[in-house]
C-alpha cells in the first residue's frame, strides 16, 4: 500500500515536491534549511523550469544542497558561488541560475563576489540564509552575529571592540544599481513560509526575465549553534534577530 492508496491524488492538498528527492537530509531538526530547500524545489517545479535550472551550492551547512534538489548543480569553493553563477548565466542566458549561500559564505569570505555580481546586475537569484552563526564548522561567529551573542569564537559574546559590528549585507546590496529585488524573509511560521515562497518565486521570475540580481535573505534559525530547542530558537529569532534584520522588501523594482 502506498500513499496514493491511503489518500487519493484528487484528495491531496499537500505533497512533497517532485524535485525534492528521497535522500535523508543532514540538517538538524528545527533548522530552516529544510524548509527553504522544499520551497526552492516546489517553486522550480511549479514554474516548470527544472530542465533549465542550474543551482550553485556554497560551503557551509548547505554545501550538500545538491544532494536534495534534483536539478543540475555546481559546488563552489567557499564564497565563490556568485562568480560561478555569473559565468553560467552569461553562457546560458535562458537558464534559471541561482546561488544558495549562508552568511559566512556570502557576507564574509565571498563579500567581493557577492557585491560585484550584484553590482553588474547579473541575472541570477541569490538565496541567502542568515542564521548569524557558522553551523557547519561548529558554531563560530558569523559576520551577521549579533552584538552580545555567544558563539564558539565569541564565547563571552560578540563585542564591537573585538569583533566589529553585525553586517547588514542585505541593506548594502539594496543600494546597488544592479539589484532589482532585495527582500528579507523568514520561515518560522506557516504565514512566513508562504511569504518566503512568494519572494523566491518573484526572484526566480526576475532572473528568467533578466531584470538584474535578486536577493532573498532568509533570517533563519540554527538551534544547534544557538544551543536552543527548535521552539526556543524561533522565539529567540523573533525577539532578537528581527530587530537587527527586519522583515520585508528592501528593494522591489
Amino acid at each position, binding site marked *: 500500500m502506498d500513499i496514493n492508496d491511503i489518500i487519493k491524488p484528487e484528495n491531496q492538498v499537500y505533497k512533497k515536491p517532485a524535485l525534492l528527492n528521497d535522500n535523508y537530509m543532514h540538517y538538524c531538526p528545527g533548522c530552516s534549511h529544510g524548509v527553504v530547500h522544499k520551497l526552492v524545489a516546489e517553486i522550480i517545479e511549479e514554474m516548470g523550469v527544472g530542465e533549465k535550472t542550474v543551482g550553485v551550492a556554497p560551503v557551509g551547512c548547505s*554545501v550538500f544542497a545538491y544532494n536534495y534538489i534534483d*536539478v*543540475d*548543480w555546481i559546488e563552489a569553493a567557499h564564497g565563490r558561488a556568485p562568480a*560561478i553563477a555569473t*559565468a553560467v548565466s552569461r553562457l546560458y542566458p535562458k537558464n534559471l541560475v541561482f546561488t544558495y549561500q549562508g552568511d559566512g559564505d556570502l557576507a564574509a569570505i565571498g563579500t*567581493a563576489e557577492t557585491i*560585484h555580481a550584484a553590482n553588474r546586475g547579473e541575472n541570477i537569484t541569490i538565496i541567502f540564509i542568515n542564521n548569524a552563526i557558522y553551523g557547519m564548522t561548529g558554531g563560530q561567529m558569523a559576520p551577521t552575529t549579533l552584538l552580545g551573542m555567544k558563539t564558539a569564537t565569541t564565547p563571552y559574546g560578540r563585542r564591537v571592540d573585538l569583533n566589529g559590528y553585525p553586517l547588514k549585507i542585505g541593506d548594502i546590496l539594496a543600494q546597488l544599481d544592479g539589484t532589482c529585488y532585495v527582500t528579507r524573509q523568514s520561515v518560522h511560521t506557516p504565514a512566513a513560509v508562504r511569504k518566503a515562497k512568494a519572494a523566491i518565486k518573484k526572484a526566480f521570475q526576475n532572473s528568467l526575465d533578466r531584470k538584474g540580481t535578486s536577493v532573498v535573505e532568509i533570517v533563519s534559525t540554527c538551534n544547534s549553534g544557538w544551543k536552543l530547542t527548535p521552539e526556543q530558537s524561533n522565539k529567540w529569532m523573533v525577539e532578537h534577530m528581527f530587530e537587527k534584520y527586519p522583515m520585508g522588501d528592501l528593494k522591489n523594482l
Partner: protein
Amino acid sequence: MEKEIRLMKGNEALAMAAIRYGADAYFGYPITPQSEVLETLMAEQPWETTGMVVLQAESEVSSINMVYGAAAAGKVVLTSSSSPGISLMCEGLSYIAASELPALVINVMRGGPGLGTIQPSQADYFQATKGGGHGDYHFIVLAPSSVQEMCDFVGLGWDLAFKYRTPAMILADGVVGQMMEKVVLPPQRPRHTDEEVRQRCPWAAMGRTPDRGRNVVTSLELDSAKMEVNNERFQATYRQIEANEVRFETYGTEDCDYLIVAFGSIARISQKAVELARKEGIKIGIIRPITLWPFPHDEVKRLASKSKGVLVVELNAGQMIEDVRLAVNGTVKVEHYGRLGGIVPTPDEILDAFKEKIYQK
C-alpha cells in the same frame, strides 16, 4: 575568417587565438605584463561576431571561479594573468582539477616573489608543474617560446584539456608576451552549439534533460574510501598524460658534446649562444621542453647520457634543474645558470656561464 598572417605581440596573439579557436568565454583581471589579452578581446568585441563572452572580473579569485563555472557547464573557457594573479587563482585551479574540468589558464610570468617586478621571469615553474594549490593534482603545462606558439598552444591547450578533462596552462614569460613577431592565425573554428556541448560533455551542469539524471559538479567527497578512489582516478589520468603527451624540441643534438636544457624565451637566446659556441668549435645541443608537465624525462636522460655535461638555463634561481637532475640521476654533471629579478641574459653571458660551469678544455 580564413587563415591570416599578422605581426603582433604574444599577448595579442593569445587573444586572437582564443576567438579563432572558438572560445565561449574569457574572464580576467588586468595585470602587467599581460593586460593586452583582455584589452585586445575588448577591442575585438567577439560577442558581436562569434558570441564569445568577455568579462573583466573584480579579481583573479573571481576570474578563476567564473572559469570554473563555465567549464562545469561544458564551455570552452580561458583566463590569463601574471604571477601574483596566478597565486590568487591556485585555490580555483585545485577545484577545477579536482572536479575534472577542462579549462585553459595562461600565466605570462613576471619576476617575484611578492609584488616583485613587471619584468620577465620563469620563477613560477615550481608553482605550475608541482601543483600550486592544495592536494595531489597536476595540469598540463605548455611553454611557448614564440608568438606563433602562443597562438597555437591556445588550440592545443583546449584540445588536451577536453581530451583528459583537466586544466591546461600556457606558462609564458614576459618576453614572449611582449615581443612582436609574425604569426599565422588559424581559420575561425565555430563555437559548439548547446546541443553539441550536451553530446561532448555529458557531465556538464547546464540544465538536465529528461533523458538523463541531474549532473552535479563537485570536488567534495567526505567518504574517505570514495575520495581515495577519486584520487586514484586522477592519478591514472596523470599517468596517461605522462605516457602520451610529452612534447619537446631539440636543436643541434645530433652531434653535440654538451647539452643545454631551457624552456620558453631563454631557450631561443640559448640557441644563439649555441651558434656562437659552434663558431669556436664547441658542440652544444639544446633540448627545449615544450610540456613542462609532463616533463620529457626520457629524452633529457637519453641526450644527457651521451654528453659531457648539462647546463640548465632559466630565468629563475634553479627550478627546472630539479627535474633535469631527477632525469639525469647523477650520471653526468648538471649545473644551473639563471638571472633573477626580471633580468634576461645575453647569448654571450650564457656562453660564458657554460664555459665556467660545464666546459672541459
